[in-house]
């Protein structure tokens, strides 16, 4: 699969072949085929399986929860991840409670496209996955150009807990990293099981800094790493986490325990971000190194390029940070 989108479509179609799987969301049917045309053609090819809902995020997410409670396997699509604030009550106060309280395995995946850098402004650009992490019986899965979304999607449906599947809108337009030219310079290893940590580095090089990130920033970070290596002869490596919650902290620790510099990077707002939690966990294990975390700053995400740059992390700034560390 060459592109992120192809992989995602493949995963959706594999899931939809199961009679218990349905995809529900706003404008997902043909001729529109979803806000990012991910489901284009599917409602025609598989009549009755891909269904337009009214604009009732809370309502149709609850509908998905009920389907899952009755043994079905719904995929719920939220048009913009920003709107996942509206569905939290159904995921947290209903679905997650049923898993332990009612001893039910719930097969439910919420596709939740996150991310900015597109000029869509404050309510259509956020990365809100941090609202859902660290809560019992909710999984937060983050595909990227290193973690094929289709594969993760299919595995997510088998987790038995509600899954926030945090896709990234810019990734819809990207190739999987293996299909990129610069990939040849890298060595990519995968650690862990179904939801692995991808390690991207340069063969034979001791990294000066370990980056820990996920999701839509992985693509520009890999390009930045390539530039740093080629232009500045600075080798850094990236650990790309595909399951934010639960997070395999043991695995992460085993991968970084001898490092001197660890930098976490996320698109969502910090402090109190994903990276802060990772750093806290590593520090509590007695790891002694320099830690930094980067994320969106305390501004709303403006629409102009300048306004957006006030809030969202900028690759040039990250590069500077690494070079001057």
């Amino acid at each position, binding site marked *: 699969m060459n592109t992120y989108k192809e992989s995602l479509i493949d995963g959706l179609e594999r899931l939809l072949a199961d009679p218990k799987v349905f995809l529900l969301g706003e404008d997902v049917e043909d001729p529109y085929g979803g806000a990012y045309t991910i489901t284009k053609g599917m409602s025609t090819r598989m009549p009755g399986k891909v269904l337009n809902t*009214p604009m009732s995020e809370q309502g*149709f997410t609850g*509908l998905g929860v*009920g*389907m899952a*409670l*009755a043994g079905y396997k719904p995929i719920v699509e939220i048009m913009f991840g920003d709107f996942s604030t509206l569905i939290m009550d*159904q995921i947290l*106060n*209903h679905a997650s409670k049923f898993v332990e309280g009612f001893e039910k395995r719930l097969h439910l995946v919420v596709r939740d496209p996150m991310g900015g850098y597109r000029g869509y402004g404050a309510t259509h650009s956020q990365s809100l996955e941090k609202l859902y992490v660290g809560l019992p019986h909710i999984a937060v899965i983050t595909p990227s150009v290193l973690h094929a979304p289709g594969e993760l999607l299919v595995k997510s449906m088998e987790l038995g807990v509600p899954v926030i599947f945090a896709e990234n809108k810019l990734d819809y337009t990207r190739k999987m990293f293996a299909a990129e030219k610069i990939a040849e310079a890298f060595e990519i290893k995968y650690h862990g099981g179904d939801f692995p940590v991808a390690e991207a580095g340069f063969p034979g090089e001791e990294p000066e800094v370990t980056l820990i990130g996920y999701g839509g920033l992985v693509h520009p970070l890999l390009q930045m790493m390539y530039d740093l290596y080629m232009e500045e002869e600075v080798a850094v490596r990236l650990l790309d986490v595909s399951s934010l919650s639960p997070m395999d902290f043991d695995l992460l620790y085993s991968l970084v325990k001898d490092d001197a510099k660890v930098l976490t990077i996320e698109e969502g707002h910090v402090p109190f971000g994903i990276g802060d939690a990772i750093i806290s966990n590593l520090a509590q294990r007695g790891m002694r190194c320099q830690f930094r975390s980067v994320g969106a700053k305390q501004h709303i995400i403006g629409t102009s390029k300048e306004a957006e740059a006030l809030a969202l992390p900028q690759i040039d700034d990250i590069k500077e940070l690494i070079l001057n560390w």
Partner: protein
Amino acid sequence: MDNKEILYKMLLIRRMEQKIESLFSQGLLRGTTHCCIGEEAVPVALSVLIDMDKDYLCSGHRAHGLSMMMTGKPETLLGEIMGKPYGMAKGLGGSQHVYYKNYFTNGITGGMAPVTVGIAFALKHDGGDAIATVVFGDGAMNEGYVLESFNMAQSMGLPVLFILENNGYAMSTPIETVNPYTVFEDRVKGFALPYQRVEASDFDNLFAVLKDAVEKVRTERTPQFVEVMTHRFCGHSKSDKRAYIPQERDDYWHEHDCVKGVAAKLTPAEVEAIEAEVAQRVEEVYQYCVTH
């Protein structure tokens, strides 16, 4: 159900609820609870209209009556409130978060409405004649997701029965003060849902209306809505003194108490015998729960 069975079930709920209230007031139970004294009629009717082996039933915080009617084992409800491993949710759920087969309750007011619509989606695709029913209050009628559920159920054509128990209050808030119309008929009909209204006082009448609605959902595979006018004689929750309920309202409902209505169809001796039987059962349940 004959009148004896109906009265037995109603009284079992009422006396169990009174027992639970008294255990709370003695400080013997932990957390909170919402009793349904005065609102026994709907659970009793559903005890025979819903087939727990195929149908689904969901409700919210005020569901002790439904719980006892669905399980037929009050000790699993009291045990749950006491945190016992044989409780309906193994002691994890308390009064508000219980389950038994296809019966589920949760503590978010009205939140089970969209869940029930989703269950109905599954049942429709399963084929067969199973239905999904959700019971909620007048307060829930102002939660947006409940209205979203009405819209989804009707526009998607799903086999769900909505039962609104309108007891006139959401906690202390009278419906008159927060709704432009105090009966919800127009709102419900705005979603094109078939609507019936009935008072809980006359059990036979209530039963006929609910039975008709259940049968329609079963055969037509589309939603129905029943608004049941009712009254709660107890506080909203364990510590509520009911200062907001006017005497006249209580007086009206004492006249129209569903228990009285059924008892009037039996001889005093029959009623007395049933009372005694219920009292014994409640005592057995209590003894079981304190010793196990």
